[in-house]
């Protein structure tokens, strides 16, 4: 199998919509059996990237290959299952009927029962699609993605609109598929979700890949705590010099930054004679995580009011 082409290959791909550059130059290779999360905030270019991989969008420059073929090639598409964020089905069919129909698009589909079971939709298999809840519809789209028994699954924001239980079942199904050797590419803006399901996380921000690592490596790079406090007087000169912090903001005596080592940093600040009030140390959210990734190499800035 070493001679088989990669599942997905993006080579210096850009995509412009008018004057907006949604993807600004992504080179990415995904091999068979990988489970990859495309992580990024809304508008980062994740959906556009998936659209390019599927041939739904044409790149403005660069090349895209799916199993070594143009992604619009039917032979490539016959090996790909797809769940899109913005798509629908007619409401008058039942999940069983439409899963059976979509199976006929693929050369070796799985029995409709099996796809419905993987998606946790057996008890709604014969209801009209129009009567399904948002979360059940998501499960249906997942069933449609897997019903062709494809080698690769593309899932764009798969857990949106799923409740906690549905999410848990979905994660379990993805693990099952990954265990069976399927390649899975999914987008999410939840760091936890990426960490939970993927073995590789590709972080996309403003149309560029800003990190591509295993969850463990990425978590180590991401500043895990946000520290905030206020200072009564003025800050001593060089108060933050040499400290392991990022995304420093200091406005009107309110100071915020991100760090992996809050204890050491605070100890240093006490030693330097900084008078802290209203101290808060909280786990960083995704926005913070992005800040720490995107600003890692920039010098800390101090903004004046």
């Amino acid at each position, binding site marked *: 199998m070493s001679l088989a082409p990669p599942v997905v290959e993006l080579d210096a791909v850009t995509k412009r919509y008018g004057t907006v550059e949604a993807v600004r130059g992504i080179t990415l290779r995904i091999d068979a059996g990988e489970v990859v999360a495309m992580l990024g905030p809304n508008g980062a270019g994740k959906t556009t990237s998936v659209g390019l991989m*599927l*041939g*739904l*969008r*044409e790149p403005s420059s660069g090349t895209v290959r799916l*199993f070594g073929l143009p992604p619009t090639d*039917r*032979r*490539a*598409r*016959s*090996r*790909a299952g*797809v769940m*899109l964020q*913005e*798509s*629908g*089905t*007619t*409401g*008058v*069919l039942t999940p069983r*009927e*439409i899963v*059976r*129909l*979509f199976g*006929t*698009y*693929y*050369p*070796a589909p799985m029995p409709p029962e099996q796809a419905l079971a993987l998606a946790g939709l057996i008890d709604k298999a014969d209801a009209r699609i129009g009567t399904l809840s948002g979360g059940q519809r998501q499960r249906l*789209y997942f069933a*449609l993605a897997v019903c*062709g028994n494809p080698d690769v699954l*593309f899932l764009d924001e798969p857990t949106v609109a799923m409740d906690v239980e549905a999410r848990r079942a979905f994660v379990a199904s993805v693990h099952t598929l990954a265990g069976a050797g399927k390649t899975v590419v999914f987008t999410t803006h939840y760091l936890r979700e990426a960490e939970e399901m993927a073995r590789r996380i590709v972080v996309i921000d403003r149309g560029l890949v800003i990190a591509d690592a295993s969850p463990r490596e990425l978590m180590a790079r991401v500043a895990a705590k946000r520290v905030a406090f206020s200072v009564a007087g003025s800050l001593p000169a060089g108060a933050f010099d040499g400290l392991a912090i990022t995304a420093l903001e200091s406005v009107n005596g309110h100071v915020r930054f991100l760090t992996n080592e809050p204890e050491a940093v605070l100890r240093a600040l006490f030693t330097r004679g900084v008078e802290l009030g209203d101290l808060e140390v909280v786990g960083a959210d995704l926005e913070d995580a992005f800040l720490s990734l995107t600003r890692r190499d920039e010098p800390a800035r101090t903004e004046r009011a």
Partner: protein
Amino acid sequence: MGTASISSMLLAQARSEFVTRWRIPAFSITSLVLPILFFTFFGLPFARQTSPAGVSVGAYLLVSFAAYGVGNVMVYGFGIGVAVERGQKVDVLMRAMPIPPLVVITAKVLNALVFSLISIVALIAYGVVVGGVHQDLGVWVSVIGRLLAGSLPFVGLGFAIGYGASPNAAPALANLIYLPLSFASGLFMPVDQLPGFVQRVAPYLPSYHYGQLAWGAVGAPAEPLHVSLAWLAGYTALFMFLALRAYRREESRKFA
């Protein structure tokens, strides 16, 4: 690398298209019941009469409404059906599937032909049983054949509306175009009973020449078959061109 068989996906697609349309009463009832209803109001009172030229008035009116019914299936089925599916973004997911767009469209056409066939047969059966309209079996077969074969311009018109109009505007647009077109072409009452200016416009309308196909089949005075076919071919080309243009515009917006 394997791909699925085109014929089996076409069959499954057409079947599911049929089930979908059948379960939408707004479509199935309009397609099947409306022509029968119109024939009941406008046709039954004269169904047993014969014209001075020896043509069964019942048969003439019956095939007129059959023509109206088939055009209706095409214009509404494609016009509203395609527009609604665009609104539901069904097309986006389909685009990523290994089924070629042409197969999806062919399935829609097949399904519309089956619906049309059911619509004509139901109307003829009603006319024969309730209206006492009698023609040789060969005449009815010829009516069905001509109406199905000549329905292509309305497939084009439907697609043009379906890809050109927004999901909300499509039903109104389909009604505004198709209903007056049918009236003005003599499908509801003979052309010589229409207002003068409509009589002058009628010979330029696609449904007028479509009606001629049907009238010719039951022995009523009609233009030569090749003239009807030439007009219908011309309108097919025009509507298909408009449909293709709207389709391409949509493509470049959604999938460029």
